[in-house]
């Protein structure tokens, strides 16, 4: 199968300057121009932008907590509009089917679910496998489980920690490792109500810093391409910027990814003791080249916050809207909280909105700042098109600002920042950089040999519309979207690392589960066949 | 001054001069009329004149059980003041100190008005969290637990800006007993007029006043022209046959209510006749320069 996209403006900064050129797809892979060969399909894409398929590195699209949110909120589907008609199972609010459909329609072809509790890995993968069209991946959560914390408390060798992490990543089919408010979930079970970087988990006498540093070092030693994905302490609290700055400083020259930095961009200034520290954090990121971050932008309206940060979610119960929540003290790294929330255009909402944009605009290097709303925590991913517009148009930001709380915006630098993202920067932030961050060499660009994940957008004045309805989307060379509508369903893969398990560690795990849970290890692990799809996984190589 | 005569009673061709006021009306009920009246009387005590009391208030009329919202006997109370803020303050204080405290009382709005005044809304916090809000029939009530049950009180009542204060009649008689008889007849007649109250003791005032006085800071002082003991010493309005004068001051929900009240008072005193009551009836004014409302006695005669 040979496909030629002709007449489009190709935005592919990895492979050179933006130019009008043809893009060729041969059997699902991007190819050199075929000379003298007649393509099976030709698509005239003049007047369009051609980019690689977009990659979302942090979006809660599946697994136990997401499913619990669906359970808690059957009335909540209006938050996840729009709902296109007449596509298989895709209209159900935020079902797996709709998730794949809506992402594809925006030109996204790979999405990472960043929070998989190892013990519920099978559930996460069952859901991911039911998300059509796109490729998926997920990060295994560590840092609150008894096994890790006991190893650290007992000063076991780093090799043993490495073996454990490799076993977890391999057996849970993860693409990387995430730590969520390290130690806090364990401490919360012993009635600790606030937890910062140097606070100590009572049971183990370990500080959060020690846990983060140990995991970061191990991930780096193991050669897991994606650096440790850190959800820091004190999320959402006034003054959390101090925690975030301390965490950034703690990277100490080793790669580290900080998730949804917006939720840590708050100082204690002003009458309401809630102010923007975005400029300071942006400075810290700019000065620490080993640190990457994603934003977790807040957009306005109804959503639901889904987080494994159970301590934080418990403290947010009072702000639930509508007033119902689920708090789960899970096994070790599992659990979390589901707290529905409506971002209002009041002081707090306006400030959060501005902090996210400040971070986007003040962090200089698009290779180190990632485009997320922490779906659905800051906003559902369906708000992405509007967010693209805000980044690419200072006028759009000004227009929106007039609707918002002036006092809050006055406490930020937003009005003075006139930066507008170029299409090349967008392509880096949403394609090239995520691929690099995750170690996915086969995507994020349109070079020959990359998989043919291609998004074509019709150029227009309305930036949001352009990104909401991709003119064409190819996934592995399959044409899946035309004029903003899914025309063809297929199922992608879940990308994983596959380290060989250390035999001694497997034995140790068997003993641990039998002793501590009274169950054999196979209650907690699963074969690929449990997913019931052909080749549900694709392996990503380790860094050598 | 020209005079008219009715049933042998001389009527001065003068007018009562009255002012615009803010007013409200409420219904106070209780298990018996006695206790409804007691609450009302206590609430409207020390409310003769805005000059010294902040407001002018009195019972407008008693209401049978069939005419009250909760089916218990009650009375309608009116309160007048010069401004909305003062009216609200007086209403709140009097309600809290005199009605809330009175056994078995309940309190309802009884004036549509153009703006709400807090009634139960201001008092509900006495319930210390145990107060109960009830909304039905387009009205909002608060129920506050107290030692004999509950204080039931409508959340708000209405404010009118069309109220008038200062309608008056002066009864000039041969002696104090006759002046008193005339005034009492007038009070009894005016009590039947809805929307009009007489805020002075028993409806009657004996210390009619003029504006200002010789002492610094006195806003009003004795009406020496009508004081019989000063006749001849000062420029007097009294003829030699007059030895006592009593006044009735009327506040009304509307100007019409004041007019109707004065008409009723006039008729009662004229019917009484000069031998038993007043020889002459007059009214107080400031030459027509201060008050917007003028009630000419000749227009109100029977």
């Amino acid at each position, binding site marked *: 199968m040979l496909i030629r996209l002709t007449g489009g403006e190709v935005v592919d900064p990895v492979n050179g300057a933006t130019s009008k050129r043809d893009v060729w797809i041969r059997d699902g892979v991007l190819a050199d121009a075929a000379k003298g060969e007649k393509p099976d399909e030709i698509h005239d894409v003049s007047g369009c932008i051609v980019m690689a398929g977009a990659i979302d590195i942090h979006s809660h699209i599946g697994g*136990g907590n997401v*499913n*619990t949110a*669906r*359970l*808690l*909120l*059957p009335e909540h*589907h209006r938050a996840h509009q729009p*709902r296109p*008609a*007449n596509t*298989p*199972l895709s*209209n*159900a*609010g*935020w*079902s*797996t*089917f*709709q998730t794949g459909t809506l992402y594809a329609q925006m030109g996204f072809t790979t999405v990472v679910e960043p929070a998989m509790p190892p*013990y*519920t890995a*099978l*559930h996460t993968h*069952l*859901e991911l496998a*039911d998300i059509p069209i796109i490729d998926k991946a997920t990060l295994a959560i560590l840092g609150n489980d*008894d096994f890790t914390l006991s190893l650290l408390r007992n000063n076991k060798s780093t090799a043993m920690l490495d073996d454990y992490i490799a076993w977890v990543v391999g057996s849970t089919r993860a693409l990387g490792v995430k730590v969520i408010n390290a130690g806090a979930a364990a401490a*919360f*079970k*012993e*009635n600790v109500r606030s937890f910062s970087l140097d606070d100590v988990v009572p*049971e183990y006498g370990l500080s959060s810093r020690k846990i983060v540093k140990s995991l970061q070092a191990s991930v780096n030693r193991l050669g897991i391409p994606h650096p440790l994905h850190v959800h820091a302490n004190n999320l959402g609290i006034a003054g959390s910027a101090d925690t975030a700055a301390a965490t950034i400083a703690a990277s100490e020259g080793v790669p580290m990814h900080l998730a949804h930095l917006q939720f840590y961009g708050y100082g204690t200034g002003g009458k309401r003791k809630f102010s923007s520290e975005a400029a300071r954090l942006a400075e810290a990121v700019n000065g620490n080249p080993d640190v990457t971050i994603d934003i977790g932008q807040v957009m306005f309206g109804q959503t639901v916050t889904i987080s494994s940060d159970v301590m934080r979610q*418990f403290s947010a119960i009072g702000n639930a809207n509508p007033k*119902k*929540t*689920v*708090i*789960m*003290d*899970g*096994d070790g790294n*599992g*659990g979390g909280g*589901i707290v529905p929330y409506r971002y209002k255009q009041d002081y707090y909402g306006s400030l959060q909105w501005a902090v996210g944009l400040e971070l986007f605009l003040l962090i200089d290097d698009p290779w180190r700042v990632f485009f997320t709303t922490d779906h659905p925590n800051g906003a559902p991913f369906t708000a992405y098109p509007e967010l693209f517009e805000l980044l690419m148009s200072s006028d759009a930001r000004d227009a929106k600002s007039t609707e918002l709380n002036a006092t809050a915006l006055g406490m930020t630098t937003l009005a003075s920042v006139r930066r507008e993202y170029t299409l090349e920067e967008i392509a880096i932030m949403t394609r090239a950089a995520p691929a690099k961050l995750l170690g996915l060499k086969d995507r994020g660009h349109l070079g020959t040999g990359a998989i043919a994940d291609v998004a074509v957008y019709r150029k227009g004045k309305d930036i949001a519309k352009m990104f909401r309805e991709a003119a064409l989307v190819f996934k592995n060379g399959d044409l899946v979207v035309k004029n903003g509508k899914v025309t063809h369903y297929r199922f992608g893969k879940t990308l994983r690392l596959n380290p060989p398990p250390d035999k001694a560690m497997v034995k140790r795990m068997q003993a641990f589960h039998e002793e*501590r*849970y*009274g*169950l054999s290890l*196979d*209650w*907690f*692990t*699963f074969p690929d*066949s*449990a997913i*019931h*799809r052909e080749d549900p996984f694709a392996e990503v190589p380790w860094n050598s | 001054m020209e005079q008219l005569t009715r049933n042998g009673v001389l009527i001065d061709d003068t007018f009562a001069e009255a002012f615009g006021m803010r007013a409200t009306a409420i219904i106070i009920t209780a298990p018996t009329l006695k206790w409804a009246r007691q609450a009302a009387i206590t609430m409207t005590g020390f409310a003769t004149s805005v000059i010294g009391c902040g407001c002018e208030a009195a019972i407008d009329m008693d209401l049978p059980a069939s005419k009250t919202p909760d089916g218990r006997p009650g009375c309608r109370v009116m309160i007048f003041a010069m401004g909305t803020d003062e009216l609200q303050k007086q209403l709140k204080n009097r309600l809290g100190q005199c009605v809330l405290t009175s056994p078995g009382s309940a309190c309802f709005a009884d004036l549509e008005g153009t703006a709400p005044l807090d009634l139960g809304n201001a008092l509900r916090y006495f319930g210390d969290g145990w107060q109960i809000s009830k909304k039905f029939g387009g009205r909002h009530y608060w129920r506050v637990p107290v030692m004999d049950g509950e204080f039931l009180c409508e959340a708000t009542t209405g404010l009118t800006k069309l109220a008038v204060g200062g309608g008056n009649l002066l009864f000039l008689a041969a002696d104090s007993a006759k002046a008193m008889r005339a005034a009492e007849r007038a009070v009894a007649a005016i009590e039947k007029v809805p929307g009009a109250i007489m805020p002075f003791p028993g409806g009657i005032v004996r210390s009619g006043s003029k504006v200002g006085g010789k002492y610094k800071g006195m806003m009003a002082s004795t009406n020496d022209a009508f004081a019989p003991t000063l006749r001849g010493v000062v420029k007097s309005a009294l003829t030699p046959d007059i030895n006592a004068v009593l006044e009735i001051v009327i506040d009304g929900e509307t100007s019409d209510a004041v007019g109707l009240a004065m008409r009723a008072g006039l008729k009662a005193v004229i019917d009484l006749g000069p031998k038993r009551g007043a020889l002459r009836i007059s009214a107080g004014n400031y030459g027509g320069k201060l008050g917007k409302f003028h009630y000419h006695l000749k227009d109100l005669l029977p």
Partner: protein
Amino acid sequence: MSVAWVGSQPVSLTDAIRNAAKLLGSSRCPVFTLDADVHGTRSAIALAERLGGAYDHAMGEVLAREVALFTDHGGMFTTPGEARRRSSLIVIVGDIPAAHHDLLQAWAGSQPDLGDRHKRSWFHIDGADTPRAATFARKLKATPLRAEGQSLGSVLGVLRAGLQNRATAVSVSNFDRFRKALAGALFPVFVFSGASGEAPGLVMLQGLIADLNKTGRASSVFLPADDDAWGTALTSLWMTGFPPRTGFSNSLPSYDPGRWDIQRMIRDKEADLHVWMSTRGGETPPKGGRIALISLSKTDAPTPGAKVTISVGKPGIDHDAVSYSSRIGTFRAVPAGKPSELPNISSIINRLAEALPGQRALPC
């Protein structure tokens, strides 16, 4: 041995599929009673969507009650593993289904190794409406919390009021011991099931737990009345966004536990075709309502009253399965216990879909 019947006549599987597909294709309103593992459920929901039908689980009544606790209230929960390792005070709430007794007995035979590490103590909240509960609780030496003639919901209310130092019209046995035990435990856990008592009592329980968390910690372990039903609910949630008692009208899923109560729809003759699954074996379809029936059931004889019967395997016995397990509070891959030739429900449903007009494969 026959595996398919039309009426009472043994037929080939292909014939049975063709007959069933014909019924499905011409049905105005087909309804599905689900009873399968995750993959059987996925296929069945996909078929219901294609046919504009509605679905519920065989244990839909108690499942709806469990679902309602979450949709209408939420709560605080923990896992069986965490309770076992961390909780020195277990409070059994009402009647726990026999299927979970092994789990609780395993806890009784182990010691917490995290948190306060105290020897585990047990209480049992009992109601006049949960008479079977006490027998099992006695085995665990649980201290009973009960009040003469009071329902579980009432006893829970009295406990909740009492823990806030409020008066109540009756008192509960051993309340002072209970209060002291709560004060002494770092992570007390209340164990309940949708079969524990009526739905309002479960909301009361969660209110009690929320009260305890104002100053200390406490949580609950939810042991579903039926693990497979709960697994079906979770599967339904990711597939359609809704728990069961969901129907597809105008191709959109809609959730309404009253409207899409399959048994009611059959009774009220709103449905005209019932696809009844029973992989447990030995069950007969619920009585009442006489509409056409397709039986997908673990059976070696035609289902009485069914127009078509197809024999299927039991997940986890005849074939590998993925099922919800309350032992771990999530899904588990279960290898076939006694592999057989009986087809899994998913493959039968996929064949049915392909035999329908249009002949498209299901998305799962």
